[in-house]
């Protein structure tokens, strides 16, 4: 619409295609091809092999994948629970009351601090009494929970602000108890945003590296950490194969999570 000349439009499209290829296409395509490459010394990879992907699904790397999956699911569940809870509290108070301002400030804060510092903090605070968590699975889950809590909170609280405040009020005026209004009206209305928050949290947790690399015990190594050690050793094709598996599993989990959203009727 902005450009009517065909040549100008084609020039813009050519630039756009180049930019997108560099941004999105090249990393995905290269990772995909490298995962199946025996060697890559020409323009295209040669000696196609399934060894790297097979290796990514063998004992050690497979257990890394399971560790990542369990950590991400636990951490996301906790983050979505706490984030939804806080968002509901904040929206039950007037918009510029102390409650909603404090919760807005506090629950956005962990996202503003580098993940490395979140990890260092947990390591410093919980390597000594009263609470010893260093070397446990819990510290990895806590680190990831904190990092995605802000995203969960802001996704759900944005939805509470857009929600029609008269619907729960109508239910209450008809005599429904607070609990009943919460369970049968407010939460179902927020379900799409809760599901979206869960998906985002899982995706972020699956790829989390900064805090995890600070706190993980040797017995609980997530897949991104494994991929980093492979890259560091120069085993780039194995790293690519593991990354591909990580992305495939993440996309599958996200698709499963999105199914929950499909059951609510949103008008």
């Amino acid at each position: 619409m902005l450009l009517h000349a065909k040549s100008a439009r084609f020039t813009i499209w050519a630039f756009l295609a180049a930019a997108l290829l560099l941004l999105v296409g090249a990393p995905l395509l290269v990772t995909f091809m490298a995962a199946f490459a025996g060697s890559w010394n020409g323009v295209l990879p040669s000696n196609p092999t399934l060894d790297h992907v097979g290796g990514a699904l063998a004992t050690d790397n497979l257990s890394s994948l399971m560790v990542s999956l369990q950590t991400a699911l636990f951490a996301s569940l906790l983050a979505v629970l706490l984030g939804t809870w806080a968002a509901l509290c904040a929206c039950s108070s007037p918009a510029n009351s102390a409650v909603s301002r404090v919760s807005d400030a506090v629950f956005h804060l962990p996202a503003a601090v580098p993940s490395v510092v979140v990890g260092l903090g947990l390591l410093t605070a919980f390597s000594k009494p009263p609470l010893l968590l260093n070397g446990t699975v819990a510290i990895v889950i806590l680190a990831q929970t904190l990092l995605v809590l802000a995203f969960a909170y802001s996704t759900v609280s944005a939805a509470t602000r857009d929600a029609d405040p008269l619907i729960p009020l109508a239910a209450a005026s008809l005599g429904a108890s607070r609990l009943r209004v919460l369970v049968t009206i407010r939460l179902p209305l927020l379900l799409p945003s809760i599901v979206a928050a869960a998906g985002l949290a899982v995706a972020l947790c699956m790829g989390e590296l900064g805090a995890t690399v600070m706190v993980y015990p040797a017995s609980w190594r997530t897949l991104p950490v494994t991929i980093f050690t492979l890259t560091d050793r120069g085993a780039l094709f194995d790293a690519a194969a593991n990354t591909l598996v990580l992305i495939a599993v993440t996309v599958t989990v996200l698709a499963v999570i999105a199914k929950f959203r499909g059951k609510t009727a949103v008008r």
Partner: protein
Amino acid sequence: MSAEVLHKPAPEYELPVRNSSPWRAWLWLAVPLLFVAAFFIYPLLQIGAQSFLDKSGAPVGLENWRYEIASPAVQTAVGTTVKIAGMSTLGALILGTFVALALSFVPFRGAGFITRLIETVVSFPSFLIPLAFSILYGRTGVVNSVVESLAPGVPPLNFVNDVPGVVLAEVAFYTPFVVRPLLAVFSLIPRELIDVAASLGSSPLAIVRTVILPAAVPALAAAAGLTFLLTMNEFGIILFTGAKNVMTLPMLIYTRSIVTFDFPSAAVIACLQVGLSLSVYCLYRWITKKLSGAHHAAAR
């Protein structure tokens, strides 16, 4: 709110949501608040405390701070962090504005698919990009081996584990963070406005400058602030490029604590980084609040 209102869900016609007393709201908020206090605020305070102790845990006053602030490594790291974040943000803003403009105003079949693709990529791990860069452009990467076989003697590409490689990877990863809010704003601009401007003789560039971009200023400022904050805190991308001479503050914190186990030093640097990040964050909140307020006022 008085206590009677609590028990009578009387039809209040003002704002319906304030039917709970403040102390009750605080009580409910206490559960998630305690979680953040215990596992985020308390650890940050512990880092602060650690910065005044030596390796054996004995108090040393301001010794660590004096040493680290005077050390060239830390000073360089602050500069590198801001420089990398600034260049990446600028790159992402330019590229993101172009991509969003092209997708919204020079539409083509498949633009919707591309938009969805960009939204998906945001949820991929950030290290995908530096990994692909290493495979493609690394010292023993594809491009170098092709160049070597075609034209032996040409000096090999070697930018991936240096500043340009890090900046390019960050631009590639953070551009979608600029594209998404811009697409949302652009979709609100009435098409008639552009047609009218064009019929009055404005060139496409003038329309972009005088009609489209002014409407996008709050979104652009917010995206710039967020991207700067995130690139300043970025760790995974830099770690994966293996750039030894791109020592940003997060990299320095990692190296001091996990590689050399110098926790007092890491604590001081972490305090510096938190101070810097929170300043940028507060500035970002202030600017977005101010700009969105001004925008609403102008609209009315």
